């Protein structure tokens, strides 16, 4: 008999409830908060936004007497106070990219995918966890920027109030916009896997190319400008509609579809590529 050579199949003595999305998200939460760069980039998102808002609102209110009447008539105190978010957005996009690219640059992805071999589950858990954090930070940034801005505008009597039509939507919109910028960084990072390349690309899409797109000539140039990432997404923070731009929710929808498509491409490659 060969019983002596056959070992009974041993089982693990450590209970495990498995790689559920909730469990993986809990793990990603721990990973997110256990590296220093998270706190720094989130703090930068808030403070950079507020600093630029202060600069814009201070300048506008200090020069209010010299502003021409036409500009006064279309002045949007809410959107102007949220102008700082266009600078803070860069920090959240960097964090969004880093939470995935740092896995590749450190080699941690192999440890992660050995613990949880279901790759899309890892991506989903990571994305959800980050989205929650980005939204909360975005809302703090947005509401804070609003109050800072209005404090300056109140000195010349042109401030907006929370109860004014559209203000709540614009402020929640500011939070959603920051979330979208973070997710764009995350999507680009998933696709490119390389920190420097992803950060450069995300900043290019959110900040550099939208400015350049203003220079495009003709009707087609205007169309590209209108649909381009932050140009479209940023409409959610405005109250006085620019007729050349998309409406707030349509613009935000376009922005969301844009980053979601990049993320989809990244997800398909994540499944297929060697880790």
């Amino acid at each position, binding site marked *: 008999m060969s019983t002596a050579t056959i070992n009974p199949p041993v089982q693990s003595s450590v209970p495990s409830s*498995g790689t559920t999305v909730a469990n993986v998200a809990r*793990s990603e939460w721990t990973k997110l908060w*256990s590296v*220093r760069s998270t706190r720094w980039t989130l703090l930068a998102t808030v403070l950079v936004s507020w600093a630029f808002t202060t600069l814009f609102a201070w300048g506008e209110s200090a020069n209010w007497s010299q502003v021409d009447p036409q500009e006064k008539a279309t002045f949007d105190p809410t959107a102007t106070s949220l102008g700082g978010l266009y600078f803070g957005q860069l920090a959240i996009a960097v964090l969004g990219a880093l939470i995935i690219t740092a896995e590749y640059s450190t080699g941690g992805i*192999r440890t992660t995918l050995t613990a949880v071999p279901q790759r899309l589950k890892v991506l989903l858990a990571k994305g959800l966890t980050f989205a929650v954090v980005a939204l909360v930070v975005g809302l703090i940034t947005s509401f804070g920027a609003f109050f800072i801005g209005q404090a300056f505008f109140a000195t010349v009597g042109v401030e907006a109030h929370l109860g004014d039509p559209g203000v709540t939507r614009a402020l929640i919109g500011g939070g959603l916009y920051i979330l979208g910028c973070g997710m764009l960084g995350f999507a680009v990072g998933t696709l490119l896997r390389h920190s420097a390349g992803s950060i450069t690309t995300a900043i290019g899409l959110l900040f550099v190319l939208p400015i350049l797109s203003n220079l495009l000539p003709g009707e087609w140039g205007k169309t590209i400008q209108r649909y381009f990432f932050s140009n479209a997404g940023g409409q959610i923070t405005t109250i006085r509609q620019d007729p050349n731009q998309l409406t707030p929710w349509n613009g935000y929808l376009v922005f969301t579809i844009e980053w979601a498509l990049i993320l989809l491409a990244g997800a398909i490659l994540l499944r297929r590529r060697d880790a």
Partner: protein
Amino acid sequence: MLEAHGLTKRYGDKVAVDDLSFTVQPGVVTGFLGPNGAGKSTTMRLILGLDRPDSGEALVNGRRFASARNPMQEVGALLDAKDVHGGRTAQAHLVALCQSNGISTSRVGEVLEMTGLREVAKKRIRGFSLGMSQRLGIAAAMLGDPRVLMFDEPVNGLDPEGIIWIRQFMQTLAARGRTVFVSSHLMSEMSITAEHLIVIGRGKLLADMSTADFIAENSTARTRVRSPQGEQLAEALAADGARVTTVDSYLEVDGRTTDQVGDIAAAKGLTVHELFTQRSSLEEAFMEMTRDSVEYHAGSADGAAGSDEQALVSARTER
């Protein structure tokens, strides 16, 4: 249990793993041996589903690893000790791994204790020595008390104490019925650690047998004799039908035992000063087997940087 069925992996034109089939059984330490670049790490990545095979499949406990619901109970793997985010503390790294599989985080303290890392638990991994990182990798692998353990070159960078620790650790796990699959490019290390060997070269299977059989089959014994009347003795041995070559001051006799050589010398009245059996070392046996499949041959002396082992082996051969 681990199974590879016709595993093949190409990177561009280069075939890293070539139609590899083997089974790794529980209860013994199985050594995965091959020269650098033979495809050992690639095979391990294929088993874990980190890389996708071009053909064939790997099964872990009878299933593809990617479908495991409790992966950390199935496999604990240490591929590269530096595959961690250096900005995290050891504790946070292990806690996150526990959470991903829904394992109680009280397990973290146990594995830290087991690997002797309790005192550095709150330190960032960036500052760890290679030896500490290896221990952390082993701690992470042990969190789920898995049925299969895979270690890729675990003794690299360890001090002698660490090497002995890890060797005993693996043998204890095997004795507890675990499947232990450990790679190395050092035959000498494997001959002490592993009971079974899977040897590959250029991605191809070269041997799959017990370590004892491998040694018996691959190490050759030759009789060496030294005599002041070497020429006459060589003639006598040749007349008897033995193949004789001269090595340094010795005659090396193929196909005759020391007894036989001694008898022949006595019959001819020849003086013998030394008579013994020369066994080729395991490292030589391994070198012999993988000679045609070494990815990067050591060149001449000026091009031989980084091939210490080969230099060592040839030094031993010449001795």
